[in-house]
C-alpha cells in the first residue's frame, strides 16, 4: 500500500503519536486509569504498556484530582506527562488542579516555571452512556487563561496536534470525541505536528460559513455535500483550537460568505458558538453579514439515555442542512 495513502483510525493515530513522543523524548510518559494492560477504556493506549513498560505507562488509582495534580507536579519538575481522563466528565473531579494549579502556576510564579502537561479527555455523546459520561465540557476549560484547549476532528489532526501538544511548554487540554475514535483517515508516518491555534478550512464555499468543532466538522461536511446538490456552496471551518481561537480565519471566511452558522455539540448557551458569534460581531466582518448569525448547539438538558432522545440532544446532519438552507435562502 502506498505510504502516502496509509489510513489509521483516530484512536490509532493518537496511540501512534504517543509512541512517537515517547520514542523521541524520555521525559514523556503516560498516566491514567486502566491505560496499562486494559489498554484504556477506549483502547487508545492499547498495548503501549507492553512496549514501554509500567514505568512509562502508569495505571493510576481512581483518583482524578490526585492524578491530575501528580501530572502537574511532574510537569513542573522536568517530565512531560500525558494524563488520560477515562471520560471528559471526570474533569469535574480534577478542576482544582486543572484550573487553579496547571493553568495559573506559571503566572502566579512570575514566569519561573512552565507546566508542560497534556491532558486527554474522551468527550461527547452518542454511546448510550447517559448524563455523566457524555458531556462536552471543553468550553469550561476554554474559559481559563493559561490553558490551551484543542479538539482535533480527524485522525491526521489527532496525531499532529497531540505531538504539538507534547512539545508545547504550556498545559494543553485535548478533547477527543468518542465517536471519532473509530473514524479512519489518512495519517502520515513518522513525526509531524499540526499547530495549536490555527483553524483549518475543510471545504471552501461562497454562500455560508459553518464554524464547527470536533465531530460536528464531519457532520457539517456531510450537510454541505447534500446542499451542494441544491446549488448552495458552503465553507466549513474546522476551529480545531478553542483557546486560543484563530479569529482571523473565521473573520476572513465570514467576510467572504457573509453568513455564519456555528455548530457544536456542547450545550448551546454560553458556549463556543457565543464566542465565535461575538468575535465576528466585534470585527470588521460584521459589516459583511447579510443574515443574523445562527448557532446550533446541544439542547439545554443533560444527555439522556434513550437513544432517540440522546440523538435529539445534539445537532445532527438534517438539523445542519435545515439551518444552513434557511440562512442562505433568507428565511431567517
Amino acid at each position: 500500500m502506498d505510504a502516502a495513502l496509509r489510513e489509521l483510525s483516530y484512536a490509532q493515530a493518537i496511540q501512534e503519536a504517543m509512541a512517537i513522543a515517547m520514542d523521541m523524548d524520555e521525559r514523556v510518559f503516560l498516566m491514567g486509569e486502566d491505560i496499562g494492560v486494559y489498554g484504556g477504556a477506549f483502547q487508545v493506549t492499547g498495548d503501549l504498556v507492553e512496549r514501554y513498560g509500567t514505568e512509562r505507562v502508569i495505571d493510576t488509582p481512581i483518583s482524578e484530582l490526585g492524578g491530575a495534580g501528580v501530572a502537574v507536579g511532574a510537569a513542573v519538575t522536568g517530565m512531560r506527562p500525558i494524563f488520560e481522563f477515562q471520560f471528559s466528565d471526570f474533569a469535574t473531579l480534577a478542576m482544582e488542579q486543572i484550573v487553579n494549579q496547571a493553568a495559573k502556576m506559571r503566572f502566579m510564579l512570575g514566569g519561573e516555571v512552565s507546566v508542560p502537561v497534556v491532558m486527554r479527555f474522551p468527550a461527547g455523546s452518542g454511546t448510550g452512556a447517559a448524563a455523566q459520561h457524555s458531556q462536552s465540557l471543553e468550553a469550561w476549560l476554554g474559559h481559563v487563561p493559561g490553558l490551551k484547549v484543542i479538539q482535533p476532528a480527524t485522525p491526521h489532526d489527532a496525531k499532529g496536534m497531540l505531538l504539538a501538544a507534547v512539545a508545547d511548554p504550556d498545559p494543553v487540554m485535548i478533547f477527543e470525541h468518542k465517536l471519532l475514535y473509530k473514524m479512519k483517515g489518512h495519517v502520515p508516518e513518522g513525526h509531524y505536528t499540526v499547530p495549536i491555534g490555527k483553524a483549518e478550512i475543510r471545504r471552501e464555499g461562497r454562500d455560508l460559513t459553518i464554524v464547527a468543532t470536533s465531530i460536528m466538522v464531519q457532520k457539517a461536511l456531510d450537510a454541505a455535500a447534500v446542499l451542494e446538490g441544491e446549488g448552495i456552496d458552503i465553507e466549513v471551518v474546522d476551529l480545531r483550537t478553542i483557546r486560543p481561537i484563530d479569529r482571523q480565519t473565521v473573520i476572513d471566511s465570514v467576510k467572504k460568505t457573509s453568513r455564519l452558522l456555528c455548530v457544536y455539540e456542547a450545550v448551546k448557551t454560553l458556549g463556543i458558538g457565543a464566542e465565535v458569534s461575538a468575535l465576528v460581531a466585534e470585527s470588521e466582518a460584521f459589516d459583511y453579514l447579510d443574515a443574523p448569525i445562527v448557532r446550533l448547539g446541544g439542547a439545554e438538558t443533560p444527555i439522556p439515555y434513550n437513544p432517540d432522545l440522546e440523538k435529539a440532544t445534539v445537532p445532527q446532519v438534517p438539523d445542519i442542512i435545515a439551518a444552513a438552507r434557511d440562512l442562505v435562502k433568507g428565511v431567517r
Partner: protein
Amino acid sequence: MAGASKAAVVDSRANLPFIYRQYSPEQLREVLHKMYLIRRFEEGAEECYTRGLIHGTMHLSIGQEASAMGICMPLAADDQITSTHRGHGHCIAKGAEVSRMFAEFFGKTTGYCKGRGGSMHIADVAKGNLGANGIVAGGIPIAVGAALSSKMMKTGKVVVSFFGDGANNEGAFHEALNMAAVWKLPVIFVCENNGYGMSTSTARSTAVKNIAERAAAYSMPGVIVNGNIFSEVAEASFKAVERARAGEGPTLIESKTYRHRGHSKSDRNRYRTKEEIEDWMANRDPITLFETELRDFGFIDDQGIQAIRDAVAKEIADGIEFAKASPTPEIATLQNYVYTEQA
C-alpha cells in the same frame, strides 16, 4: 573515622537532643538566626500591612518557626518543597531572601513572582520552593508529582509537602498519600497542625485524634512531634529524609504547633480564648524555647543572641527599603507569564 573515637563522641553527646549530636554550633546558631528572621519578617510584613503599604491579605505563621526550620534542616539545596498559604516561614527556611519576599508583598518586579503572586503564592524555584498555594491541599498532589519526577529522572531529590490541619480533610490529601505510598515515592508529608482550620478546631473537624493516625490508612509511618521544639521536628524530618532517599517511601509527620496570630487579617479570634493564646506565647514560644536551650547548653551567650537580633533587624529594614525602592510592573506587562509560548 576510627571506631573508638567515634564511639567516644557518641557517648559524650548521647543524652543530648538530636540536633546537638547532628549539627555544629555554627549551624545551630544559624537556625536561631533564621527563626528570628522568619519572626521579624512576618512582624515587618504585618506592620507594613497595617500602615497600608501592602494590600490584600496575609496568613502569618508566627509561633510556627521551629516547624518550618526543623523540617527544612536536613534537606539538601536541590530538594524541593510545596508550601501553603501560611508559607513565609517555609520560604525563608528553604533559603529565600527576605528582600525579594518583601518586594513580592509590595507587588514589585523584583519580587520572587514579579508582583503577580503576593504572599499567598510566594515561591523561590531556584531554591527548590515550588510555591505556596492558595488552595488548601492544592500542593500535596503536586509534591507527589515532583517526587515522581525525582524517581523517574533518578535525581535523588526528596520533596516535602507542607500543609495545615485543614488539608487533612481534603480529598487531595488522601489521593496523594495513597499514590505516594503505592509508588514508594521520595516525599514527606508535613502536617503543621496549629489546632484550627481557620476557626474550626481539629476536634470539631477531624475524626481522628491525631492526624498522624491517617498514615496507617496508607501504610506509611505516621510521626507526631512537638512542632515548637526544633530538635524534635528536625529529628523526625531527618529520619523521613533518610527513608525517602533510601527508596523506602513516604512519611507523614504531624507537627503540633500554634499560630499566635489569627487565620488571616479578617480574623476576630472569636473561636479561641485570650488565655489560650497567651499561654502558648508565654510558655511554648518556639524561639524562646530554642534560644534558652542553646544558652543553657553553652552554644550561645546573651551577646551572641543580641548580635543575631541586631543583624536580623537590619536585614528586615534593608529588605523593606529594597521593596519600597523597587519598580512596579508596567500595565503593558499585564498578560506576561500567562503562557510560555503564545499559540
